[in-house]
């Protein structure tokens, strides 16, 4: 829009006279020329021909009927496609937001992890996951024998793996081919349970009974009962390796599983080495005995007897090493923690969905909805303002484009 200087008082008076004359009102005598000009302009206005006036009158009376071959006028409806990209962007933003919020929640909220874990802990859980089995195979193939397969509160368990101390290596993509023969594997596990405070004592008793039922032993235990804190107990357990998975499943049923992890350590190398050294020591002993039987001098006899004593000590030590390694393979070590909690999410109710949980979930839903609404506004408002600005600019450009028709060609 071009900026024009405002009218002077005289000019404003003249303009007013024009409007008055146009309305048929009298004007000041000194401005009669404007009155005459208006009358002349009105008198020279082109007029419709009678034929056109009649045709237009007919069209108006009939409501502008559409000719058969002429498609009906399409008004603003087709322009609605313009809204589709905006709707798509908004929907994508909402989906992304929900996904981000969902992931963030599962990673940062312990209570959410616990809720997810509950079904797994309450089911008759096969103890080793499909994911853990290849890891075990990989561990077995590792000559260093220190590869660990860890798992924390897996929400779902897959096909069970063989639950024996001598694990048959499972094929794993990219795994090193395992050495032939049975492997010696030491397994350890850590389990943290939460239980309502009022059933804390019963749960700790159940731990001992469960361990007994699977042929294990409680190597040590510490039980602290505190009404205010809820109580906490720690157990150092030894469970027969071939029943470890069943035992862990049984222990997991005693409360809400807050966390659970398992380690596998391949001790085949150590076991084989000790066994070889024992075989060598026994062969040496046999040779010493044969040499003793053939000894002729006292000096030879004394020397051989001294070596036999040292050999016996070595054999005893190697037998002890082998026995210890066998025990490590046969008995798995389990560190169990039981914690009593007051009205904890999921734990206090043993995984049941209570009205309190419903209220918390409803609050969470409202929080997420408010967040979604806020982020949506943050996206939609600037886009809307931008759209309005673009629409106004386009409208102005369209108007200017039309008005260029008034400029000289």
């Amino acid at each position, binding site marked *: 829009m071009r900026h024009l200087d405002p009218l002077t008082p005289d000019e404003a008076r003249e303009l007013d006279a*024009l409007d008055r004359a146009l309305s048929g009102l009298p004007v000041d005598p000194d401005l009669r020329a404007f009155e005459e000009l208006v009358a002349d302009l009105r008198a020279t206005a*082109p*007029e*419709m021909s009678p034929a056109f006036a009649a045709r237009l009158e007919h069209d*108006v009376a009939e409501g502008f009927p559409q000719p058969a071959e002429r498609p009906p006028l399409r008004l603003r409806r087709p322009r609605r496609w313009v809204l589709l990209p905006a709707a798509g962007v908004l929907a994508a933003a909402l989906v992304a937001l929900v996904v981000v919020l969902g992931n963030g929640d599962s990673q940062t909220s312990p209570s959410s992890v616990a809720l997810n874990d509950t079904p797994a802990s309450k089911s008759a859980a096969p103890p080793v996951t499909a994911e853990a089995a290849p890891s075990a195979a990989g561990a077995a193939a590792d000559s260093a024998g220190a590869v660990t397969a860890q798992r924390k509160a897996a929400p779902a368990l897959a096909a069970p793996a063989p639950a024996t101390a001598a694990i048959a290596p499972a094929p794993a993509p990219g795994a090193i081919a395992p050495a032939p023969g049975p492997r010696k594997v030491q397994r350890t596990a850590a389990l943290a349970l939460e239980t309502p405070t009022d059933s804390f004592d019963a749960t700790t008793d159940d731990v001992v009974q469960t361990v007994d039922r699977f042929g294990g032993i409680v190597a040590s235990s510490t039980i602290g009962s505190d009404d205010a804190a809820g109580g906490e107990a720690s157990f150092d357990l030894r469970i027969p390796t071939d029943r470890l998975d069943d035992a862990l499943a049984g222990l997991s049923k005693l409360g809400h599983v807050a966390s659970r992890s398992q380690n596998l350590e391949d001790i085949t190398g150590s076991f084989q080495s000790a066994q070889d050294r024992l075989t060598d020591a026994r062969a040496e002993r046999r040779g010493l005995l044969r040499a003793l039987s053939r000894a002729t001098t006292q000096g030879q006899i004394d020397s051989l007897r001294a070596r036999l004593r040292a050999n016996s000590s070595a054999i005893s030590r190697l037998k002890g090493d082998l026995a210890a390694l066998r025990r490590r393979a046969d008995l798995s070590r389990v560190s169990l923690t039981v914690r009593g909690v007051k009205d904890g999410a999921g734990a206090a109710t043993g995984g049941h969905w209570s009205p309190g949980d419903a209220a918390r979930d409803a609050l969470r839903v409202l929080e997420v909805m408010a967040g979604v609404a806020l982020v949506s506004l943050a996206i939609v408002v600037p886009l809307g303002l931008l759209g309005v600005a673009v629409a106004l600019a386009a409208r102005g450009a369209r108007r200017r484009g039309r008005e260029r*028709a008034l400029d000289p060609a």
Partner: protein
Amino acid sequence: MADPLNTATESFDALYRSSARDLYAYVRTLLGDDASAEDVTALAFERAYRRRASFDPGRGSQRGWLFGIARNAALDELRRRRRSAPLLGELPDDHAAAPDEEADLAVRRTTVRAALATLPARERELVALKFHGGLSNAELATVLGTSESNAGTRVHRAVAKLREACHAPS
């Protein structure tokens, strides 16, 4: 409860009765020939009729709204032809003064008509909107997409040029 569409139809009929002649005069002055003026006038009324339910009183008078539609159609026609419309050269002679009019009146109106033809198209359109269309300054502002004071100023400038052209030696 009144049917909004029926109400709008009655309102449109009244609008037609009060505006048809003025609208045609404006379009005819802008385009310069009868055939195009009739087509554009009919098209403007048809568009207004079909959009009558979308008229928003908060954005101006019905008359200003109708003239806006007509102006867009006329400018589109001008753009299509891309030629300036000679105003009075093609005006029918039936606008000449009647035989019983005084001679000086006839001369004066011929002079005004000729002076109008010499104005640039923008000023000519303003004069046509104001004095042939009979629009108020507020309605002019709606049609031109400008402020009321700006519309008034532009009308005054156009009238000043027209008066100069009337007094210029032929």
